[in-house]
């Protein structure tokens, strides 16, 4: 089961040099990253609401299960298996700020057992890019 949240964002002005580059090559330079947050089941909504406040408007929540760190933990049920994965698209220059805020709220608290990482996106369609820049 997946939940998708998106909100229309006011368009930012693109610099003239970037416009020329886009017109010349007909592609946007890599400017986006995929933010992935993994947290315990039940906290996905909280993370997406927090991301919305940071102006991250498109997020997808997916349900999954974690793998135990050791077979003993698995046998004795010491590991909380149920997870939620939140995928969001963020701008390259805002990733540091967003990760810092996430770290302050979720990543150091054991109840969330959360980690966050970003994957660089090499390309996206023009319409997709224009939603985010």
């Amino acid at each position, binding site marked *: 089961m997946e939940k998708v949240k998106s909100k229309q964002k006011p368009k930012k002005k693109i610099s003239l040099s970037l416009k020329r580059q886009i017109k010349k090559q007909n592609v946007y330079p890599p400017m986006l990253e995929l933010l992935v947050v993994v947290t315990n089941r039940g906290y996905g909504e909280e993370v997406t609401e927090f991301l919305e406040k940071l102006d991250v408007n498109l997020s997808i929540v997916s349900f*999954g299960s974690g*793998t135990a760190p*050791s077979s003993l933990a698995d046998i004795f049920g010491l590991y909380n298996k149920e997870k939620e994965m939140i995928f969001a698209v963020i701008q390259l220059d805002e990733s540091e700020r967003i990760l810092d805020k996430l770290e302050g709220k979720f990543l150091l608290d054991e109840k969330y057992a959360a*980690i966050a990482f970003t994957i660089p996106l090499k390309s996206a369609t023009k319409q997709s890019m224009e939603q985010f820049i």
Partner: protein
Amino acid sequence: MDKKFELIVSIVNRGHSDAIVEAAREAGANGGTIIYGRGTSPFEKDSIMGVSIQPEKEIIMTLTPTENKNNIMQAVVEGGKLDENGMGICFSLPVNQVRGISAKYSIKNIKKEEKAEDKKED
């Protein structure tokens, strides 16, 4: 964070993730997350009484330091028999930044160093 990480993604048929997880754990992976999906490959299409079926898949994502990536991927291929046709695929994605994992790694390293020092004193 100085350490470089990569995301290893393995996609296998439903029910086959245990072998992958075990192989990755033995090669040094610290854990992963499994999500579920459906395959859309035209080579895997099947149908029963005219109703087409999409095979169910498990997607195992493991975050690992770059230096361990090759060992873990090799172990995953051997453990999950991914070199055989139709058993699944495994690939890696670059990761720019990671948060929430460095503390665990640094605590592990500190404990390792303490053990090594204790052995030296003995």
